[in-house]
C-alpha cells in the first residue's frame, strides 16, 4: 500500500496524467493557447478529480462491481455539471472562453481512470490526496504548455487574466517581446502537439540520469518510504 508521499509524487511526476499516462489529451491540446485558459481548465479538472475521487471512495463498498462503471460515470457527470453551472454563474467571462471544454471533462479518461484504478480501492483520505496530486500534475502541464505557447505564439504572458480575476487583472498581462508579430504555429493545434512532445522529452531527459545510477534510485525509494 502506498503512502501519501508516494501518492503525491505519482500524481505530480512519476505517473503524471498529461506527460506519462497521456490521458485527457483532447482538452489538454485544445485549450492551452494561453496560460490563463490552461489554468482555468486545470482548476476545473482538479476540482472534478478531487470531488469524484472522494465520492467514489465513500461509496466504494456500496456499489456492486457489475454496475460500478455506470455509477462512476453518473457521479462524474453530475460533478462536472455542477461545476459548469457554478462557473457560468460566478465566472462568466472564463466560462465563455472554456465553454465547450467544461462538459468535455466528463470524457477526460483520467477521471474515470483514477476512479476505477484508485478511488474505488482506497479510503477517502488517500483518494482525496490522489485526486489532488493527479489534478495538480495535470494543471501544471496545462499552465506550462499554455504559458509556452502564449509566449512563443503571441509574445505575452497572462493575457486574459481579467476573465478569471476581475477587471483589475487586465494590467497583469506581461509583454515579453514588444511589437511581436506572433508565431502562428504555436497557437494552432500543431503547436500544441509539438509543445507537448517537447515537454515529454524534457521529462525523459531529466529522469534518465536517475535510471543510469541504480544506487540513486534505491536511495530515493528508501527516502520516500520513510
Amino acid at each position: 500500500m502506498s503512502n501519501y508521499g508516494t501518492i503525491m509524487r505519482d500524481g505530480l511526476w512519476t505517473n503524471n496524467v498529461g506527460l506519462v499516462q497521456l490521458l485527457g489529451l483532447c482538452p489538454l491540446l485544445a485549450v492551452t493557447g494561453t496560460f490563463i485558459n490552461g489554468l482555468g481548465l486545470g482548476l476545473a479538472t482538479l476540482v472534478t478529480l478531487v470531488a469524484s475521487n472522494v465520492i467514489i471512495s465513500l461509496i466504494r463498498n456500496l456499489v456492486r462491481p457489475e454496475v460500478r462503471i455506470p455509477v462512476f460515470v453518473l457521479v462524474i457527470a453530475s460533478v462536472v455539471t455542477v461545476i459548469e453551472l457554478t462557473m457560468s454563474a460566478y465566472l462568466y467571462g472564463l466560462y465563455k472562453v472554456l465553454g465547450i471544454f467544461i462538459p468535455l471533462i466528463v470524457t477526460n479518461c483520467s477521471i474515470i481512470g483514477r476512479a476505477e484504478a484508485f478511488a474505488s480501492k482506497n479510503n477517502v483520505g488517500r483518494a482525496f490526496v490522489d485526486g489532488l496530486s493527479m489534478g495538480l500534475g495535470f494543471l501544471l502541464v496545462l499552465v506550462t504548455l499554455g504559458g509556452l505557447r502564449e509566449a512563443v505564439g503571441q509574445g505575452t504572458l497572462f493575457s486574459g487574466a481579467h476573465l478569471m480575476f476581475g477587471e483589475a487583472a487586465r494590467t497583469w498581462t506581461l509583454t515579453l517581446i514588444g511589437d511581436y508579430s506572433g508565431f502562428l504555429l504555436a497557437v494552432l493545434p500543431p503547436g500544441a502537439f509539438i509543445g507537448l512532445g517537447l515537454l515529454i522529452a524534457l521529462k525523459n531527459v531529466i529522469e534518465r540520469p536517475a535510471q543510469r545510477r541504480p544506487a540513486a534510485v534505491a536511495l530515493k525509494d528508501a527516502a520516500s518510504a520513510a
Partner: protein
Amino acid sequence: MRYRPIVISAVLLFLFAVLGSGLVAFMHDNTAARIAENQRRALLRSLNELVPRDQYDNDIYTDIIYVRDAELLGTRDPVPVYRARLNGWPVAAVFAPLAPDGYNGNIRLLVAVKMDGTLAGVRVLAHRETPGLGDHIESERSDWILGFNGKSLRHPSVENWKVKRDGGVFDQFTGATITPRAVVAAVKNTLLYYRAHGQSLFEKHPAKAS
C-alpha cells in the same frame, strides 16, 4: 433467488441516477437566475457599444422580435432583432445574424442598423476563425470591424460591398480573405433585409422573453 443481485444492482443504479439528477436540478435552480443575468449583462454590454445608452430609453433586452430569412440572415432559425426606441420612436434595430461562410464555421454577428439604414456598428459575438489571422474581426484585436460604422447600402453602393480583392471597398487581412469576405457579405445581407422590411420591424409586438 438468482435474481436478487440483479435487482439490487438495478435499485442501486436507480438511486444513484436519482441522486445525481437531484443534485444537478438543485444546482440549476440555485444558479439559473444568476446565469440568465450574466447572459443579459454580456449581451447588453455589446448592444450598448453599438447603440449608446443615452440614445434609447426602452428595455432593449425585452423589446425583441424574431425574424426568419435563410437567404439574408444566414440561418433557417429565427434571428433575434432588438429594438431601440427613444420616447417611443424607433432609433435602431440590432440584428443577431450569422455569417454562414466563415473559414471555420458560422460567425455570429451583432449588426445595429439605424432608422435611416446606416450602420450604427457591427460586432462579432462568437467565431472559430484562425487565431492570429481571422480573429482580427474582433473589436478587441483590431479596428477593422469599426470600419462599418456609418456605412449603408448607398455608401458604398451595393455592388461595392465586397473586400478589395473582389473589387469592393473593404480591407481584407494579410493571409485571411475568407473571414472578412464572409463578414462583409453578412452585413450587406442584413442591410438588404432591413431595406426590404425596415419600418415594419418596429410595429410588431415583442416576442415573449425566452
